[in-house]
């Protein structure tokens, strides 16, 4: 304990109050400016390349919403709430939910037209998700 007092006394002796002020002002200013400059640079670059990528992808082929697998009836296109009737494995209730989600992602519902809905068999299982959640928590 005494030892630490001695070292802290020695430290205070090393730097005068003015020197401390100058050192910290220097670090605060540099830190502030450099961190913001780096991250603003990143913002500009991300915006630029996303713009290019989005343009390029739109310019190529008009993107299809999803690959055709389950052709839907005209009734389900209009997202009419109906009894959950199975239509080739996808119930209309599920179709309604997916349509609603897609419509909310893209803003106005008039622009959206769902051509087909297909079950995907990839992705993480619920257990994998739980495992990842468990691992990410402390960091």
């Amino acid at each position, binding site marked *: 304990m005494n030892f630490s007092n001695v070292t802290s006394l020695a*430290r205070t002796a090393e730097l005068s109050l003015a020197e401390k002020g100058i050192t910290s002002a220097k670090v605060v200013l540099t830190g502030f400016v450099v*961190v913001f400059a780096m*991250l603003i640079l*990143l913002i500009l670059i991300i915006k630029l390349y996303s713009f290019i990528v989005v343009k390029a992808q739109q310019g190529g082929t008009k993107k299809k919403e999803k690959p055709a697998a389950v052709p839907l009836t005209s009734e389900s296109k209009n997202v009419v709430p109906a009894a959950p009737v199975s239509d080739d494995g996808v119930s209309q209730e599920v179709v309604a939910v997916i349509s609603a989600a897609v419509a909310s*992602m893209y803003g106005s519902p008039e622009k959206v037209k769902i051509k087909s809905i297909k079950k995907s068999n990839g992705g993480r299982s619920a257990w994998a998700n739980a495992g990842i959640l468990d691992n*990410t928590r*402390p960091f």
Partner: protein
Amino acid sequence: MEILQGFADAVGGILESSGLLTLNWQNYVMIGVSIVLLYLAIKKQYEPLLLLPIAFGMLLVNLYPQIMAAPSTELLTEAQCAAQNVATSGHATTVINGITYYENPTYGGLLYYLYQGVKLGIYPPLIFLGIGCMTDFGPLIANPKSLILGAAAQIGIFVTFTGAIFLGFTATEAGAIGIIGGADGPTAIYVTTKLAPHLLGSIAIAAYSYMALVPIIQPPIMKLLTTKKERSVVMEQLRPVSKLEKIMFPVIVVIIIAIFLPDAAPLVGMLMLGNLFKESGVVERLAKTAQNELMNIITIFLGTTVGATASGQNFLTFDTIKIIVLGLIAFCMGTAFGILFGKIMYKFTGGKVNPLIGSAGVSAVPMAARVSQKVGQQENPGNFLLMHAMGPNVAGVIGSAVAAGVLLNIV
């Protein structure tokens, strides 16, 4: 008779080398502290994945200090040390027949070797590799302005630096203390081992404690600085981000940051490598290993050895108390500046940005984002801020790595 004498000598020898005679009061205090931490980790589940190994490392080193002893070769008395010009500091001592020997064992303690990964700055970047595999930068790419919030939350680091300087710490020590405000365990450890290794135990424990306390520390500050109207802002859905954008992101970020700020390259580089493992989709095995097995192994080594730096003599000083107070200030300032910049963005966008997402700019992924979500939902139960808060949250990881690079460079 001879047998009895031999028995008595043997027992005497064992007693002499036992902790009962060699440990001092600081060790006993620290044993108590480590048991409290074990309780918090197991019963209260405060960051158990880290707190449990840290607490146990602390327990071990205070029961048996030589477990962290550095390797050397001979037993020397003080006179012999002086004669042979051998430095006596940093060596464990043994008392035999009343003479103090400076112990130079051929091999160091178990934790000494595991600790080299911390000391040489190997473990923190490897943890970042795993974090990169688990991080989705999608919300950040969809809304790059979040990076401003990630930068704003780092101001706390530099403000705390000033506080530490005026409390009598040296510039390098102050830099290491300030980084607690980045709320990023691996970054804090990385910077501390480079700038002020003797403070590692206190800083790591402060950093991880405050990260565990995010849900308690942040909400009052968030509520104090925002109005009810601001807290109930519902944000627009983020645009979907294409796979190509996600693949390009890590490559572009690492090029920019490593060129301009090489000191941040080990941390940011590994983070982005991990993210590329994930987003490229072609090395799934590597991504799985990095985020599960490798990360868990490193966490065990890191936690135990960081805990083992907190031996009684190192830890029970007035400096530790100062560090714990300064760390809390750093953390609160980071949260406050994030929120304040969130408010600025709220004004500039005409009320489209909910300032609550600003507090997620301190890294602490994903806890800080969850806190934003929770506080937002208290005002408006139908409001889902989580994805919006993930943007500043992952930006905070990049931000604190950049801030670390700045500190390493200028301090």
